[in-house]
């Protein structure tokens, strides 16, 4: 990697942190879902397990483009572990009725959704997916397929199947070595056991790359239909990821290799769910080719906006408006101010050097580097 690419990598890394959910909001969401899980579990004879799924659980959740630290969707699986025998209608209504028994939850509850019950909190929406094991036995990590309910236009319940637990494990496996390093660092920092560190609490280059791609997608499609869905971006990115230990190289690789994992099975576009091969994440592309075209045009735009253009120009002030336009004004500005403040802190700690005349400021002392001695800018 060139010095320019490395420095750009640091900037992208900071921007990804700025579009991430805040720790406070995430902790609030986690304690809220634990309380909901307890309420549901305490009130029925079925063995209930409630777990986050989707981007909140994968650590790829992003702020809305308004930049407010709210409006998040938090997806939860509410599994009735011994409910294999229940009818589809009962699966859905047992959970819904239990929520309605609590006045606080009743007040937050939306009308019945196609698959979920939605509770509206201040800051996030909690989508609770009632489900039972697909097979009689539910055992992690081998037998984790779930049966959920889908209410069709005729108000009839149809079965659907999914395996969010296995998907989560697959996602972790795709970034295993960097994830272990990140979890190890988190465990040391917080003096906890490495096995107890959840994936959503650490920040790997893959997670950050996915966050930037999702943010680029959100801005790109704010006035357009057919935005590529998050599960497609996440799956293709994780497939394409090749263990890079920095976000810039991860993004370069992902943006180049993503299309490899889109199959054409005798005229049918197919993006395989890596843990349920019979599921095609791109099934809608075959009903509406605009969605497929939108994906490919977004991909080429993302390469241009995130990789090619910013590196073709010089000047932090020239790169900054490009990134603000494609990744959001506020997070890019905050990221740059944080970089500048960190530079200032290093200077105050006498830990800053000028590398030659043109190598830039650095915290690494080298043969050609000159320490920045304490001083004070003056004048108007």
């Amino acid at each position, binding site marked *: 990697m*060139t*010095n*320019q690419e*490395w*420095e*750009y990598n640091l*900037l992208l890394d900071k921007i990804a942190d700025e579009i991430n959910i805040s720790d406070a909001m995430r902790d609030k969401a986690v304690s809220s879902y634990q309380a909901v899980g307890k309420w549901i579990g305490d009130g029925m004879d079925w063995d209930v397990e409630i777990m986050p799924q989707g981007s909140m659980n994968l650590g790829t959740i992003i702020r809305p483009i308004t930049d407010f630290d709210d409006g998040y969707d938090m997806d939860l699986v509410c599994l009735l572990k011994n409910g294999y025998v229940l009818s589809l209608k009962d699966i859905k209504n047992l959970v819904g009725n239990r929520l309605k028994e609590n006045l606080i939850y009743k007040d937050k509850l939306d009308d019945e959704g196609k698959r979920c019950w939605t509770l509206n909190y201040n800051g996030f929406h909690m989508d609770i997916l009632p489900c039972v094991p697909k097979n009689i036995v539910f055992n992690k990590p081998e037998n984790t397929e779930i049966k959920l309910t889908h209410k069709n236009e005729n108000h009839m319940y149809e079965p659907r199947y999914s395996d969010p637990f296995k998907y989560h494990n697959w996602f972790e496996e795709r970034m295993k070595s960097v994830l272990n390093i990140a979890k190890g660092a988190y465990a040391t920092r917080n003096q906890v056991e490495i096995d107890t560190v959840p994936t959503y609490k650490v920040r790997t280059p893959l997670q950050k790359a996915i966050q930037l791609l999702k943010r680029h997608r959100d801005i790109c499609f704010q006035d357009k239909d057919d935005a590529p869905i998050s599960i497609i971006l996440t799956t293709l990115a994780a497939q394409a990821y090749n263990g890079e230990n920095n976000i810039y190289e991860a993004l370069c690789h992902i943006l180049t290799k993503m299309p490899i994992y889109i199959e054409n099975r005798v005229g049918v576009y197919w993006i395989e769910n890596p843990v349920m091969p019979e599921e095609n994440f791109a099934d809608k592309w075959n009903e509406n080719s605009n969605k497929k075209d939108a994906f490919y045009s977004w991909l080429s735009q993302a390469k241009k906006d995130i990789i090619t253009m910013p590196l073709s120009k*010089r*000047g*932090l*002030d*020239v*790169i*900054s408006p490009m990134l603000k336009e494609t990744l959001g004004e506020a997070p890019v*500005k905050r990221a*740059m*101010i944080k*970089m*500048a*403040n960190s*530079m*200032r802190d290093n*200077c*105050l700690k006498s830990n*800053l*050097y*000028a590398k*030659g*005349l*043109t*190598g*830039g*400021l650095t915290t690494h002392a080298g043969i050609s580097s*000159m*320490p*920045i*001695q304490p*001083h*004070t*800018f*003056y*004048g*108007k």
Partner: protein
Amino acid sequence: MQELVVCQSSHILFMVSKIKFRPREYRLIEQKMMILNQYPDSECDISNNKLLWKGNLCPNPLSRIYQVKIEYTIHKRPQVIVYGDCIFNTELMPPHVFKIDRVKKEINICVHLPAEFNSHILIVKTIIPWTIEWLYFYEMWLATGEWCGGGHSC
């Protein structure tokens, strides 16, 4: 100097401590040698008791390259001038600047308090690195609207 310290006279002791702790004044030729030794790709000349240094500076691998000159006469404040088109892509007045000459396309910047430089200090170790740092915060200021480099107003 150690052996002088054993002298009985308090007057001599005072002088010794002065000699010992005050670095000597650098001549222009020494300033020039030290600069060119560290930065051989830059230009440095002395004429009429004035040192003139010119170099291309880049504060960050994502930054532009800036043309900078330093004019220095012993016992006077070094004049640090960023010049050329690279600095004149904005109408805004950057912080920590003495004066701007829009015709000559020159900005005279202030990288230190008066007390932070004198003729006993090397330009190569202070003014030049400080200028690189100013340029970094200048670009960040253009990018964000905030000056993050600290400093005092006159």
